[in-house]
């Protein structure tokens, strides 16, 4: 009986999981255009227009309530980069949707509360395949970049976006294995630029808050495992890529999970000090992006 119960339970889980996977409607990057030859060319005003707001089914949330004022424009919008993930036995998954849209909206609310920036309450998923839409959102965020596998078009568009003046922040990837995956794609974006540690003295840590004393921000898993680090990512690394004028273009948060700190800020189980630091880093990074 015990054996049969186990098998029944396992089969049920498998069925539910499959059902869930089957209902996720994500863009299939394999089917979308991957031609980078037109990246960076002049386009028309029509092509430069942003698209209408849409919400995607996400890894963790489906049918997340949309705020009433989602279509009230703001100066800053949490723009989440939609990337192609590495292939797995389950196919290429929607890693880009981790924490989405809850963490996006929580950070938006925090920025609205803590700064004078006019913030749109709802986020904006941004795809490189969507014409020139990416250039409408000068601040871009990507999560779990230890699982990304940028297409040629995505890498070219991201590079052009950054060189024009955009800012990219990536977060929630841990350990050496995920670092290798991240850098493999990042090298497609900037084969010629080094990834360096951001010193404490860099203005990015001093735009609103002085963040000389930073600590590792764990994901929600800390409430279960009581381990701050994941995999072999024991030391938090605040890294970046500079432009020719020593301005941070790419802010890399390795061995930490700021997205979870925003997402779970209202969960009493999640330790408050991590959300506090997570928000402060988010605010500092954002204000840096808007001033440099």
């Amino acid at each position: 009986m015990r054996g049969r119960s186990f098998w029944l339970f396992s089969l049920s889980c498998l069925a539910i999981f499959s059902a869930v996977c089957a209902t996720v409607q994500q863009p299939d990057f394999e089917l979308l255009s991957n031609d980078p030859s037109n990246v960076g060319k002049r386009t028309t005003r029509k092509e430069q227009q942003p698209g209408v707001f849409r919400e995607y089914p996400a890894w963790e949330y489906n049918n997340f309530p949309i705020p009433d004022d989602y279509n009230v424009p703001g100066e800053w919008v949490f723009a989440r980069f939609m990337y192609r993930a590495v292939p797995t036995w389950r196919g290429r998954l929607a890693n880009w949707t981790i924490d989405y849209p809850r963490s996006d909206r929580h950070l938006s609310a925090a920025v609205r509360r803590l700064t004078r920036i006019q913030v749109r309450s709802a986020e904006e998923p941004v795809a490189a395949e969507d014409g020139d839409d990416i250039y409408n959102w000068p601040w871009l965020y990507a999560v779990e970049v230890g699982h990304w596998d940028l297409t040629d078009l995505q890498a070219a568009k991201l590079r052009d976006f950054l060189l024009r003046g955009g800012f990219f922040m990536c977060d929630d990837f841990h350990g050496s294995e995920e670092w290798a995956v991240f850098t493999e794609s990042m090298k497609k974006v900037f084969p010629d630029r080094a990834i360096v540690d951001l010193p404490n003295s860099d203005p990015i840590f001093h735009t609103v808050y002085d963040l000389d004393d930073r600590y590792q921000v764990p994901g929600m898993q800390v409430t279960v495992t009581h381990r701050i680090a994941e995999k072999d990512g024991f030391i938090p690394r605040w890294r970046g890529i500079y432009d020719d004028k020593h301005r941070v273009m790419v802010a890399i948060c390795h061995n930490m999970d700021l997205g979870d700190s925003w997402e779970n800020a209202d969960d009493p189980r999640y330790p408050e000090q991590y959300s506090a630091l997570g928000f402060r880093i988010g605010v500092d990074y954002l204000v840096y992006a808007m001033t440099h």
Partner: protein
Amino acid sequence: MFEFLFKYPFDVFAKGHLVLMGSWPSWILLLLILAAAAALASLLILGRKHFTKALRGYRSVVLWALDWALLAVLLLLLWQPAISVTALKQQQNIIAVVLDDSRSMALKDTGNSRQQEAVTLLESGLLKDLQSRYQVRIYRLGATVDRIDALSQLSAAQPSTQIGKGLQQLANEAATLPIGSVVLLSDGADNSGGIDLKTLTELQRRRLPVNTIGFGKTELYSDVELDGFDVSNKALEGSRLEAQVSIRQNGFGGKQARLNLSGGGKVLASREITLNQSGKQVESLEFNAGPGGVKSLEVRLDPLAGETNLENNRLTRVLWVESGKHRILYVEGEPRWEYKFIRRAVDDDPAISVVSMLRTTQNKIYRQGISTPNELEEGFPTKPEDLFEYDGIILGSVEEAFFTAGQTDAIRNFVDRRGGGLLFLAGRWALADGGYNVAPFADLLPVQLPTRKNTFQRNFAAAELTDAGRRSLVCRIEEDAEKSNRHWEILPYLANYQDPGTPKPGAVVLARVDAGGNRLPLLITENYGRGRSAVFATAGSWRWRMQQPLGDVSQETFWRQLLRWVVGATPTRVVASTPNANLEDESHVELRAEVRDKQYLPANDAQVDAKIIGPDGSSETVAMHPEPLSPGVYAADWQAQTPGSYVADVTARQAGIPLGHDALTFRRENGEAENFHREQNRELLEKLAEQTGGRYYPPGDAKKLAREIAFSEAGITGREIKEIWDMPIVFLLVLLLKSSEWLLRRRWGVV
């Protein structure tokens, strides 16, 4: 013909006045004329019933008028009318014969040079005629006027002509000598820009007529000549400048020519132009000022085949390109993308430094671009002198209530008194939405703000240039004007816009925004007091950077030019100037300096010196003295003897503390002036004669001059009475009146 009919030259009637020589008083004449009119009228009235049909109506009146006119003329003749005119007493007066001895008189319009023709005219009888009536002194005219003993001393080699100066000298001589008149033989090619008012007034006061005889062709030869070269004498490093070149030509209409501008050994601008049929045109050349320093700019027109004079195809000016950065204080009330991309656009501009204070949170200010750690530590400057250290201010989305009353006053004085530039941007806390309707912001703005709120809209809108914007260098985002205008048509939409209201009179609208069919002013500029202000009614031009390809620098170019406009004309505490920076065969230079103290009020007790460095590297320091009627203004005169470019560095101190310094440039040319305007300047000669009571004579009419010159009120004169009763015109008039009456009577059948 005039003299035949009127017995005397025209000047007798022009300069004399009518007198009646009869012994009876003139009121009797008037009475008799009226009595004659009445008598004839009564005859007409009494006899009208005997009139035939032919004489009824207006015809009898006409005959009455003719009879009355005849009677009036005869009565007038009885009173012995005459003209009383002042005339020079012969042999008691000096006639100054002045011959132009400049290089332009060596030109040969016909077989002989102009000077040869002048000498021939004098030697063919005119001089003898004059000498028979008056004492004659001969002078030669160049930069000054010198007396000569013989015509053979003329050489037509003087490097310039200064008619005004020469006449001023003669007017001074007339104070002690009985100079009755001046006879000027010249082509009128004056190099001092005309006869000054002071000289004319002096000649008129002395009633000294200048009779002119003009030589040379009156129209430009088959030639192309550069008539003017206008360009700023100061610029910021790397600025885009525009030079205006005036061109005159004759005989080359429709032809192509190449206009070049060079400086520092490099061609800065060059383009093909088409010469107008009208003979005059103004062409513009745009160029980059380049790095700091003093530059000699030369504009040159490539010679065309058939030109008679190639020396007038180039002109030179001096340009001072300022090194060092002008500082702009940018106050922003909220983090936004426009702030980032404005800072980026001018980040490596050699002439602009943006010092910014950004309200990141309600009580935190983020400072960037500061020169010391404590700059703006206390926030927006509270002392005017601290604010006046900047050259320009940008106000972003920051509400009026952010500033104290003292700070808003300081902002107004920053523009009005200090002469700084002020740029307003759009925002949800800017313009009408920021409460700028109240003074002093309302006064400083080049627009009348709307009275409603919610004028800031986060909707996309297209920017478009006005006619003024198309011509303005601020809006020039490409090297070529046409390309620039076309580029504006395809610029990405602005991310937002704000209704700035109505432009004030005197404001210039350079661009508009098309907001869903509603056109609103977008970029508006205005001069205010000593400074200037502008509104750029958007905070969404960052899309011009993000939505255009990497190599496109239009967003950066626009912002650099706009900010250079904001600060380019902002004066320092010392502003040096000279009324004439281009000395053509002239050595006198007048230096001026306007000096202000730390509060930018006129400094009346400053010590001001000008160190002048010449083209050979030698220098001389000149003390400048205060101008009594102009507070804070200092002046000095100096002589630039050597041709070439000069730099004058003017420094000012007050109680030993330096107030500041400024530099100006000027250039002395030698022998260049006579290459230009070689045709006879008949207009100048005629005007000079007319305004002094003389006459202009073409050489062919000059024989009359000896006689007509007599009627002058200068020198030793006497009154002459010229009887006019026996003028042929009088006889003809009487004949005309009588024969008209007879002819009319015959026509109407009443003879």
